[in-house]
């Protein structure tokens, strides 16, 4: 693409990234969510991550299902094409979109109702198919937009704002994602931007199915005492296993870490992910051990956050399908149509 954005008039002191964009260039329309909704913090983290990754906004496609969370793509990256599809089915739409053009960055944004209830099948199958995307669930344990019913991630016994208790077993999307083939899995909290921004950056840079579950309190319907998705509860029970930093290719490393507690992993775009381990025993490359750790902590009432699993050698759906390098949506009749010559042999073989 040869078109360059016209530079806008800017305050001199404002931060500009390598592409010459300011933070504002990554914003969208004004949010219509409730004041204080966790989802808005996540939108902000996404904006920040894209800014810091120096992504050209129009090279991102942002897709969602239906829900308060699924509305958020409208509130970020105003220069990106967005698609607010139908409830629970964003993963299939991303799959198709990705097939059509392997060159864009795919951001799938969903809610716990959208992904764990109606959309569970698509959630799982898009991951096992290896769609190269950054899939984020904004997990508040309720259906916000329909006013506060339990979703499938609500903990057993957790109380609704109106008094009822949830009696169904909860689904943990993180464990599920690891089990079914996601090659990058993280969990974070909408209130922890420090952790969330680099996690999103790494997920976007990862080539393969990347999933991040972000606990995101619903201030309207699920932020009361007794809710395991309330700000207070998550603040107290979240246990970060690591912290991340993303370093650009060949950038001098400026910060020093104590030896043995950090690890550098190269990402697909050439940048480096620096992992500082908070839990010395935790190895995010051992899928089975990570799952076990996760479940044990969950049984103890703790929510593990951070980069939970990552396969640095991941491949993606296009590799599996052996598609050509040029995006399929750019092929023309020349490459696609075998013409009358092709028909001749076809006709001949059918006589």
């Amino acid at each position: 693409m040869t078109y360059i954005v016209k530079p806008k008039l800017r305050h001199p002191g404002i931060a500009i990234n390598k592409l010459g964009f300011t933070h504002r260039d990554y914003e969208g329309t004004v949010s219509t969510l409730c004041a204080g909704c966790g989802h808005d913090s996540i939108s902000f983290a996404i904006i920040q991550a894209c800014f810091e990754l120096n992504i050209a906004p129009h090279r991102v496609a942002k897709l969602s299902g239906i829900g308060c969370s699924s509305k958020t793509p409208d509130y970020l990256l105003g220069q990106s094409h967005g698609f607010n599809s139908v409830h629970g089915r964003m993963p299939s739409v991303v799959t198709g979109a990705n097939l059509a053009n392997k060159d864009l960055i795919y951001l799938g944004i969903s809610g716990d109702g959208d992904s764990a209830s109606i959309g569970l099948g698509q959630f799982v199958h898009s991951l096992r198919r290896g769609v190269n995307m950054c899939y984020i669930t904004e997990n508040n344990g309720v259906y916000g937009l329909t006013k506060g019913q339990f979703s499938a991630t609500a903990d057993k016994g957790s109380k609704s704002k109106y008094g009822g208790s949830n009696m169904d077993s909860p689904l943990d999307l993180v464990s599920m994602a690891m089990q079914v083939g996601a090659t990058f899995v993280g969990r974070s909290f909408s209130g922890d931007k420090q952790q969330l921004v680099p996690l999103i950056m790494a997920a976007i840079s990862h080539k393969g199915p990347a999933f991040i579950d972000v606990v995101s309190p619903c201030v309207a319907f699920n932020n009361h005492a007794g809710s395991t998705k309330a700000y207070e509860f998550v603040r107290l029970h979240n246990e970060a296993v690591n912290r991340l930093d993303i370093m650009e290719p060949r950038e001098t490393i400026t910060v020093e870490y104590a030896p043995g507690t950090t690890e550098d992993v190269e990402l697909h775009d050439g940048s480096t992910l620096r992992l500082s381990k908070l839990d010395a025993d935790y190895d995010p490359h051992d899928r089975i051990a990570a799952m076990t750790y996760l479940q044990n902590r969950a049984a103890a009432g703790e929510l593990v956050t951070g980069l939970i699993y990552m396969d640095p050698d991941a491949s993606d759906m296009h590799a599996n399908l052996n598609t050509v390098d040029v995006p399929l949506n750019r092929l023309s009749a020349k490459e696609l149509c075998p013409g009358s010559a092709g028909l001749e042999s076809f006709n001949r073989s059918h006589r």
Partner: protein
Amino acid sequence: MSAIKAVNDFVIKFANVNGSGSASANEMFARSILRMGVPVASRNIFPSNIQGLPTWYEVRVSGKGWLGRRGGVDMMVAMNPQTWDKDIASIDANGYLFYDSSRQIPQSRFRSDINIIRMPLTEIANSTYNDPRQRQLFKNIIYVGALAQLLGLEIAVLEQLIGEQYKGKDALIAPNHKALRLGFDYAASQLNGLCGLKVERADAVGDRIFVNGNEAAALGCVYGGATVAAWYPITPSTSVAESFQKHCSKYRVDPVTKKNNFAIVQAEDEISAIGAVIGAGWNGARAFTATSGPGISLMQEFLGLAYFAEIPAVIIDVQRGGPSTGMPTRTQQADILVCAYASHGDTKHVLLFPEDPRELFEFTAAAFDLAERLQTPVFVLEDLDIGMNEWLCEPFTWTDGQTYDRGKVMSAEDLESGKTFGRYLDVDGDAIPWRTLPGTHPSRGAYFTRGTSRDRYAKYSEEGSVYQDNMQRLLRKLETAKSLVPAPVIQLAKENARHGVIYFGSSTPAMNEAMAALEGQGMHLDTMRLRAFPFCDAVSDFILAHDQVFLVEQNRDAQMRMLLVNECGIDPARIVSVLNYDGTPITARFITGAISERLTMKSKEAAE
């Protein structure tokens, strides 16, 4: 007893057990007749299971070239003890029964008004082969050999077909030739003169090809430039995707890199399949899915989204017997309404009704142009009869040098030049707005696609007037569609006709024959073959130009009639339904009977 005598004009039906290897022997039989220049129509009637249940193969030999089902059976090749009684009962009086006489069958289970040709097939096979699988497989070839002799098929033609079939596995050719001979020779010595049905070499096939519809549809997808296929297996549509895979492996692998110019996803269900098609269509790739009734039901919500958000998509619906799981291995035209008005709320979709594999190939390729031009789902409505049977039809053609109509997509240059972009703005007066593809331009043309109401610039809105404006434009877009979809094919009778007949899709061959028969009886009717919905004016003009029209369809509820009455504002009294919906393809006899009966009744009434 008298025996039917016929040359190049009879029906022979094979009754087999599925999984027994009879299918390829039977198809070879049919093909050999074609190679002798005599037209053939063949139809498989198979169960919804994998192995061990009854299956039939019906071959109609018609020197005159009538390719619909005729009805009736002149000769039954009864190889399945399970269905014996029913098979015997279905033979026309004075017809023939050919059966494996190795097993003793009591006299009571035969009929006295048919001619019986006995051949101890199992005994012959068992005495010739030791391996049980060989015994089974060659038994099929042996009966083909015998039938060749009885009917006068040229053995050289059959031998050549065997040669072609086993090209590359040459070791199998000689044993098959031998089995063929075995049957032929036995019939020559033991059964000579028993059969009055004959095939005589003719020149009535021309350069036509013998092909099934699903293969044709798949090829249409290749030629139409589809790069993304997302599907979920379901009879009778499965072979569309499988054949697309096959054609792509042949035509669509980059010769240098060996990489694929296509992507096929076997989705986890039909909802996911259509979702992926819509995602790909939104992102500028030509995409399709193939399914059948239950899949269409599951896709309803997404189809409404595609209609309202205006996203191109091609859906090939290979119709089968409904409702519910219904009769999954039988044919019907019963998804018309569920496609035309797919989804809740006010929607209307574009439908195409191809008559045979050739038109299916063409329409499928054209569907991608239509879908992108109109930015909406386009349904190709075929059915099990077209899709899973080999049809004799004109060879496929393609005009080289044509490019695809990608519709109104703004390029980076367009945007850069400052052209106004309003995603839902009717700038050209045809109600089709311009769209942009993701990633096109750094600062212009981005918009937010949604299934909710929005204004002409794609901005969310809950205003009644904004909503209504958009909904009216969508109606006008369908008006534009009328001039883009294939027009009906109208055939005027030799004499001025007060009655017309409307039909579509797989009823065509039976209709052609029925019309000739009616004409032979002095009944003259104009005909109109519908090829698409929405209907252009010619459709209602045709109806209004006649006192009454018959509408032939293969469903219970006269779904096409409903569509016509509603969309053209026609008095339903003008349209008389002729309905066949028992799951078997409609026959010329049925159509002729239904129409002539009603015409006679009417002229009687008039005379009174």
